[in-house]
């Protein structure tokens, strides 16, 4: 049984978000880092939500009222049990496609699968520290120093956040339930295309 979170935030929550948003704007305008008084986890949740990480990293599933985010797999990336067939051939400008989970993406780079951002040590970010996360976003490389991250992960846009913001996002990601979900390796373009 999964517990679904209402998609419309309660007025109280909204109030908190607005207060935080005001804080963020003030911090930006004055170019000062977020104050230590902020609760990093709450701030991180606000940032992760507003920066749309769930859009790609929380799979969509079909619920009673149509497609909805699978909250049991909150930020757990492409579900390992969902094996995708080869992508359709690109036609003209229709160059990029995604699955109904919104977690597998095909394009000129091949096929990429959104990563497991939960604190599971084996399959998620459990062994990372905040610096690994910051380096990953800033350098757009796996673990900050490894292979380049593939589209559509918008690392260069997320990199416009300050280190404090990224640290808060990571604090939130540490606080969510770990989900054991081994996301498949990306598939190179030649292999993706060669499969019938």
């Amino acid at each position: 049984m999964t517990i679904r979170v209402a998609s419309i935030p309660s007025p109280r929550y909204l109030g908190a978000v607005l207060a935080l948003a005001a804080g963020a704007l003030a911090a930006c305008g004055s170019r000062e880092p977020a104050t230590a008084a902020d609760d990093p986890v709450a701030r991180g949740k606000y940032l992760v939500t507003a920066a749309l990480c769930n859009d790609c990293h929380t799979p969509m599933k079909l619920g009673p009222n149509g497609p909805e985010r699978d909250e049991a797999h909150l930020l757990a990336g492409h579900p390992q049990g969902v094996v995708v067939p080869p992508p359709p051939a690109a036609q003209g400008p229709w160059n990029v496609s995604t699955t109904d989970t919104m977690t597998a993406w095909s394009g000129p780079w091949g096929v990429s699968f959104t990563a497991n951002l939960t604190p599971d040590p084996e399959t998620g970010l459990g062994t990372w520290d905040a610096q690994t996360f910051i380096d990953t976003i800033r350098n757009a490389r796996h673990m900050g120093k490894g292979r380049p991250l593939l589209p559509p992960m918008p690392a260069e846009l997320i990199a416009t956040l300050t280190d404090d913001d990224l640290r808060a996002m990571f604090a939130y990601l540490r606080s969510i339930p770990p989900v054991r979900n081994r996301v498949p390796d990306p598939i190179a373009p030649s292999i993706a295309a060669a499969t019938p």
Partner: protein
Amino acid sequence: MTPRASALVLASGLVASGPACAPTAGADHADVAPLPVRLADTGLHAAGAVDVLAPGVRPFSPQYPLWTDGATKRRWIYLPPGAAIDATDPDAWVFPVGTRLWKEFAFDRPVETRMIERVADGSWRFAAYLWDGDGADAVLVPGGAAVDVGGGPPHEVPAVGDCRLCHDGPTPVLGFAALQLSPDRDPAAPHAEPVPAGAVDLPALAASGQLVGLPPAYLVTPPRIAARSPTERAALGYLHGNCGGCHDDRGALAELGLDLRHALDEPGGATDPALRTTLGRSGRAPLPGDPDAARVRIAPGAPDASVLLARVRSRDPQHQMPPLGTRRTDAAAVALLARWITELD
């Protein structure tokens, strides 16, 4: 094929920003002059003579060089007169402000020269200079470049932001260090280079007074990897030189629990961290191309089941190790590592 000036393919960084953006390269360091736009102005060569080193610039040659697709390399160091390296931590030397190191990459002709400099505020800055086709001078390419070196994948000059992916950790200087400069050089090191005339090694450096604090034992018995066979010595040396910059228990990737950097006080043998963290040890990364296979970093006696070797052999960007700076497999290293892993049985 002869590499020509016309064969230069300049990558977006240079085209987009051009040498005009060079002053911003020094902008991180408010009180420091911007990086010179030309190599000729970095202090490597005597004025107007690319064949003559400037006074105080000395060549050196690490015994375990980095593989860069077969490029031949020359390296030099300049230490400000009267200043000395502090080697109290023998594995993380502290260099004086004003230290400069250069490394030239050649494929038949010089292609690029890189520089690392410790500036007045104590930080390090990085630069790469791309040679023109006739070897007259080289210009700063902050955004990197790709150079046709006669067929096959191009040689990639890293963007300055990528230098720190490798030059990171307890000290950003990787090849000018005790084990690398030991006079007890490993004859089986892959791509071992002849020591250039006038090169500075550990004893020469100590004698010059520009190295202080080094535990004297390392001058009596020069650093050497205490391995159980010549093959193992060369294999561990290769991993130290090529991988230890990232895979280091004192570096940013310590959480991987993979330590390929050889610290000087290692007793050697089976307790060496490079063995302890690999032999029979499961990692997180899959065997390239076989995600269902066991994820053993080094399976003694079974090179084909060893993730480490498969990643050294691979040049698939998803799997290759190191993850940047090379497009061609180091066949000599693969052969050496395979021999070593077989021998481990």
